[in-house]
């Protein structure tokens, strides 16, 4: 797609879908927080204070403070880097590995397809979150292992999608023409087919990001992976949950809202991308 058409279609996608524009703005803000978090946070997220424990949201602490007196706003901002970082890494790894395995399976069929298929079936046989928990427990409690666990349980999603997309294109004229033109099987797959399946796969990746964020946060929520005092939305929700009954709602609400906002924005972005890549959809 040429740049001009891309720009025009972007305009349409945004014009017809205001939510997409909102989503992009929110994601841009989140990205800013992720990159510049420590510099824009008003307070040091790790500094505790016995005197301002569980303070209500106020001008001084717009999001209030938590049970250890730390400023929640700062912690939410700084946590963005970790939450988004874990999700983006996991999705990127899943994407690449799933694309590779799925394309090979979809193009060559036969034993490649059978082996990859059984491997994916094995992963999907487990309730995915439980599997993620199991992997983190087995490998050890660390951010890297959260990423690995999230990557593994996300793999079948990309693998199946790539496999289906490659399968559909395998018999098309231009693939045969590529082989006529001297491209071997692997080169045909890589240079001729994969560039065509990347756009729909990116839509999937965008829709998958929200899920990946929730997954990483969820593992932290139950105490696996990220350890306190590291600021991370999942842990913060977990810590704040104990105070709902006593009425200190801000401890869990703001990190929870951040999660919701991030997930929502990625989903909206995915929908918008889908429209962008298929301009024939609307009259």
């Amino acid at each position, binding site marked *: 797609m040429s740049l001009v058409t891309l720009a025009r279609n972007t305009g*349409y996608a945004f014009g017809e879908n205001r939510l997409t524009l909102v989503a992009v703005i929110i994601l841009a803000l989140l990205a800013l927080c992720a990159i510049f978090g420590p510099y824009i946070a008003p307070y040091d997220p790790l500094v505790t204070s016995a005197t301002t424990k569980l303070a209500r949201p106020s001008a001084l602490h717009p999001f209030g403070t938590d049970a250890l007196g730390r400023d929640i706003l700062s912690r939410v901002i700084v946590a963005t880097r970790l939450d988004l970082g874990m999700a983006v890494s996991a999705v990127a790894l899943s994407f690449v590995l799933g694309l590779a395995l799925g394309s090979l399976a979809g193009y060559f069929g036969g034993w490649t397809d059978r082996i990859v298929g059984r491997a994916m079936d094995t992963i999907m046989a487990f309730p995915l979150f439980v599997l993620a928990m199991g992997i983190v427990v087995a490998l050890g409690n660390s951010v890297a292992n959260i990423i690995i666990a999230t990557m593994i349980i996300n793999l079948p999603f990309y693998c199946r999608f790539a496999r289906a997309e490659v399968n559909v294109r395998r018999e098309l004229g231009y693939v045969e023409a590529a082989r006529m033109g001297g491209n071997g099987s692997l080169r045909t797959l890589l240079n001729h087919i994969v560039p065509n399946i990347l756009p729909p796969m990116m839509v999937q990746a965008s829709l998958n990001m929200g899920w990946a964020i929730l997954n990483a946060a969820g593992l932290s929520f139950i105490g696996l992976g990220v350890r306190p005092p590291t600021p991370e939305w999942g842990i913060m929700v977990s810590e704040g949950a104990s105070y709902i009954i006593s009425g200190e709602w801000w401890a869990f609400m703001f990190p929870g809202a951040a999660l919701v906002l991030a997930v929502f924005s990625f989903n909206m972005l995915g929908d918008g991308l889908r429209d962008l890549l298929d*301009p024939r959809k*609307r*009259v």
Partner: protein
Amino acid sequence: MAQLEIDNLSVEFRTRHGVVRALDSVSLSVTRGEIVGVVGESGSGKSVTAYTVMGLNDEAAQITKGNITMGGIDLLAARPEAMRELRGREMAMIFQSPRTALNPIRKVGKQIEDVLQEHAGLPNRDLRKAAIAALARVRIPDPERRAEAYPFELSGGMCQRVMIAMALACTPSVLIADEPTTGLDVTTQAVIMDLIRDMSRSTRMSTLLITHDLGLAGEYCDRIAVMHAGHIVEIASTEALLDRPAHPYTRQLLAATPVPESRLEDLNSIPGHLPDLRGELPPCRFSGRCERRQPICDEAELPWTELSPAHVVRCRFPLS
């Protein structure tokens, strides 16, 4: 008296790239038992005409002027429920790609029964027999067994016959066939076209045959209307159109269509390309490609010239 009459029809489509003036002042009539061919290339508007008659256009379509009457009924003024009643009973359509136009998960016999149940008002116990009779009418061998088949089990030609059976189940007075044999082998095409022609004659049905194949129209149609870029440029009896074409486009189309006697050197192509139907259009949409073009062609309103009662052409300088 014409069974189907399209009078001065203009249709526009609102798209994100602008308003497409798909049809402009299209007028055509079909009498009982007549087969009229609508011939044109891609973008000529022939399918849009068919869909507008059947009331199957999507919401982006707007009929800006004109009338369509069938047997005296004003189709454009009819309410959706009335149109639904008419479709299938009084007017029917058969489509290209028969295997995809049939429901893939329903037996073909049942699909015909559905049509009969909806429109013919037969009691349930008679439906199956009527469906089998419909299949027999289109000369499908072993109709009792074939009625139990799914579309994927039948060949393209068989599927097209099933579609014809469905269309003709309630003996409609108007049949619109939109490229019914594109994609079928030439031997199957001949059988299907013979069938359509025979059924048209025997039930005195008005038939509109939409095709890009001028040779096909030449063999099966009584009259032919040639379309270009949303205009009808010429209507004449088949002999008159093929032997004495009056519109420059018709003549070029004939010269470009290979027939058994053609030679490669004589085959011509039509210069230029279709005008963009979204922009400013001259009164004659062919003028940009016409070698006989004069300045007045781009200024004054395009007249209908009647060369004889049955031969009209939309051109200022028709060929003699």
